[in-house]
């Protein structure tokens, strides 16, 4: 079958898709976006997290056919050109990236959290990221990264003229 959808704002078409294929497979193997990761392919690790119509989902659990005419956002769409999103920059700066295999999913999940909650408590951060496994960091630096990103975004909001939040 053929699937037509939008990825990171770009209209995209995938041909010859077998009906059992997941959105993750289509992104990684058919449309050249391998940033979303494949650590379990059974909905348990969060490494494949992407936005689907604005909500974070495990793309390994979404059948490719389900995304027809919908909007997908992946880790590759977070940065504006060479300018990293504050969440991406904070993960690098805080030492939250070791092997980095969990990172794309955590970035999307954190990006979503900080859009919803400007000043999340530690307990809220842990709750929001509880579906994303990381085997390398012990999560301490990930907590630091999320706190850092939240603080930097708050500073940016304070500096920006009112009405331009985001």
């Amino acid at each position, binding site marked *: 079958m053929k699937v037509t959808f939008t990825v990171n704002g770009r209209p995209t078409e995938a041909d010859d898709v*077998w009906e*059992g*294929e997941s959105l993750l497979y289509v992104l*990684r*193997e058919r449309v050249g*976006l*391998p*940033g*979303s*990761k*494949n*650590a*379990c*392919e*059974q909905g*348990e*690790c969060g*490494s494949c997290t992407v936005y689907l119509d604005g909500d974070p989902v495990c793309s390994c659990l979404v059948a490719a056919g389900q995304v027809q005419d919908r909007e997908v956002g*992946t*880790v*590759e769409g*977070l*940065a504006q050109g060479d300018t*990293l999103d504050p969440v*991406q*920059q904070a*993960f*690098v*700066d805080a*030492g939250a*990236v*070791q*092997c*980095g*295999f*969990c*990172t*794309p999913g955590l*970035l999307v999940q954190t990006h979503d959290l900080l859009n919803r909650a400007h000043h999340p408590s530690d*307990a809220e*951060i*842990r*709750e929001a*990221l*509880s*579906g*994303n*496994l*990381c*085997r*390398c*960091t*012990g*999560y*301490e*630096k*990930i*907590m630091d990264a999320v706190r850092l990103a939240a603080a930097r975004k708050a500073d940016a909001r304070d500096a920006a003229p009112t009405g331009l939040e985001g």
Partner: protein
Amino acid sequence: MAALTKPKNLQDVAAPGRDGVGASPLRPDGILKVKGDFAYSSDLWHEDMLWGMALRSPHARARILSVDVSAALAQPGVYAVLTHEDIPGSKFYGLEIRDQPVLAIDEVRFHGEPIVIVAADHPETARRAIAKIVVEYDVLPSIGPVEALDPERYGYVHAPADYKAHAFGNIVHSQHIHHGDGDSAEVRALADVIVRGEYEVGMQDQAFLGPESGLAVPAEDGGIDLYIATQWLHVDRQQMCPVLGLPPEKVRLTLAGVGGAFGGREDISMQVHACLLAQHTGKPVKIVYNREESFFGHVHRHPATMVFEHGATRDGRLVFVKAEIVLDGGAYASTSPAVVGNAASLGIGPYVIPHAAVDATAVYTNNPPCGAMRGFGAVQMCFGYETQMDRLAAELGLDPVELRRMNAMEQGSVLPTGQVVDAPAPVAELLRRVKEMPLPEVENWRTADGPDVRELPGGLSNTTHGEGVVRGIGYAVGIKNVGFSEGFDDYSTARVRLEVIGGAPVALVHTAMAEVGQGGITVHAQIVRTELGVDQVTMAPADTRVGSAGSTSASRQTYMTGGAVKQAAEAVRAVVLARGRDRYGWAPAFAAGLRLAGGKALTAAGEVVADLVDLLGDEPVDETTEFRHRPTEAFDKVTGQGFGHVQYTFCAHRAVVDVDVELGLVKVIELAAAQDVGKAINPLAVVGQIHGGSTQGLGLAVMEEIIVRDGKVRNPSFTDYLIPTILDTPPMPVDVLELADAHAPYGLRGAGEAPTLSSTPAIVAAIRAATGLPLNRVPVRPEHLTGT
């Protein structure tokens, strides 16, 4: 055949960084990783590429009566279906003993053993082809670690007529250590108190997130280029060449992005399979395991049964220890011999004990093969001896930390192997530091609005509002060796090139070190900046065009490949300064006293005598060197005596837990660590290692176990094999000590493994303190706490 070129998506980790030794510059691969642009081994793609897949045994032990692949071969889209009969060269491989068939021959010895491999145009085509293969088995009763010790009755995992090891029945390797007078009757009489305990450690999985994967590309010279996630490129190749029937120069490996390793990539997995399929089809072949196959596709941490006896005087001086350890090595040897060596030589812990008798043995069974995992034989022992120390303290009415400090080893102490520890060994100091850290708030779950269930055992399952919740505190300390031991010729190779590019001096580092996430490439750049005084350092991709770097394991890479990079940079500096002698007529003694910093040559007093750019001129300086640590010796077969390890490393933990004693649920509230790293080359990365290692120890304490029944793996998924999430993992304050080891580059001490040892027993000690239960097995499960 289509033109075979380099695969797309292969990364170029070339971004220059900043800062030298002792700073925490950002990872050179960090930006690529957060952008989703870093190419892991599972991301590679090649024009015309096929997908490889394996058929694996559903039985732990069976004779293979027949294999019928005809229906699979006939399926459209299938390009190759191979069995052991199609292997051009040797049919066996192995790290220490070549006992593992590339594809099963006439019998299978563990659940998940590969029998047939398939290459097809789509992973689903390959899956369907696999489903059409018909194998007839004669299933035999599987041999476990108990049966293995009685081969006369239960049989041999490997038929006695086969390759090595069978002279010893089902025993892969054993090591005895006899220290002082062992546990003789006279020695026992000296002890006022003897504590005996039996302990068990379950099978832990490395559970790295990036699945085993790689891409094999046939080359026009008849060789193969393999892009692979591994820990040791050269030993992968050494095992692959005889199987493929190719000389080393025709098997070229390049490291692709590695999604964690922790020992699980020390053995080869899909490497040979992908190459065989590529050789056979003439097309690039990619193999990517899914999570279930990953559980079957790599070795695990050895499950252990341990019997300890500790004797002490009434005032708490250890007199003797006796330990008997059996490690379940599974169906093939992997690194079992070295794991046994570690278990025996590190088996009494970081204590001074005048008499010791230790026996460690690994057995062949029909369970999944076990081998390297972070902590490598020392993890299991630490759970045993630290539990014993707590029990002994209770028996003597002493504080458990005080008992440890009284018996702690220090620089100059003699180990049970007879080796004198000739570098700092601040065991008592680490315990003191971890004990003196401020304790977390009691009943931290109470808030003005009532209990916050997220802070309680059971969390959002809302199982308690504080009723039945008891706090406990526990301590532990451990000892781990660094580097390869027992006389192994441990070396690493580095090439450093310095040249002027665009008017500035630029260094290039080329090694075969596997960057698996630990940050070795960050450290290499720091070392070169420090030694050569340049800002810009680029990393060549790790590959087999340069000499071996040894494995990214045994906490050894910063010491070994870091040491090699330092040595190569020093060689480059010597050439650069020699040019100054020619160019400016410097006296040799004057040149030898110069250093390079900030792009200049400086005297010791800081006076600039030349610009590095001028010194270099048009001609690059390019030096390759091999670095070795001082030699070690094999342990004596009978007494276990010998200078077996090059360096020791220590970490202490304090765990604070809340236990819901009614439901048996544990919440680790805080896990504090103190570790000596000799010199923190990159403090941020060091703390990251301590956090990560501590968390894997937490997993072993309360969650992680591969359940094997009659040789069958019951939980090969992240649904059933649970690793710590961010909710399970507490704040982890870390205190890093830097007491230099004069034998090591910059005085550094390998840091990656020690934190994995003591975190497990510290947590279990805390649970014991809360519950009063003996808890002699890890992982501790709710039913162990509730008795149901």
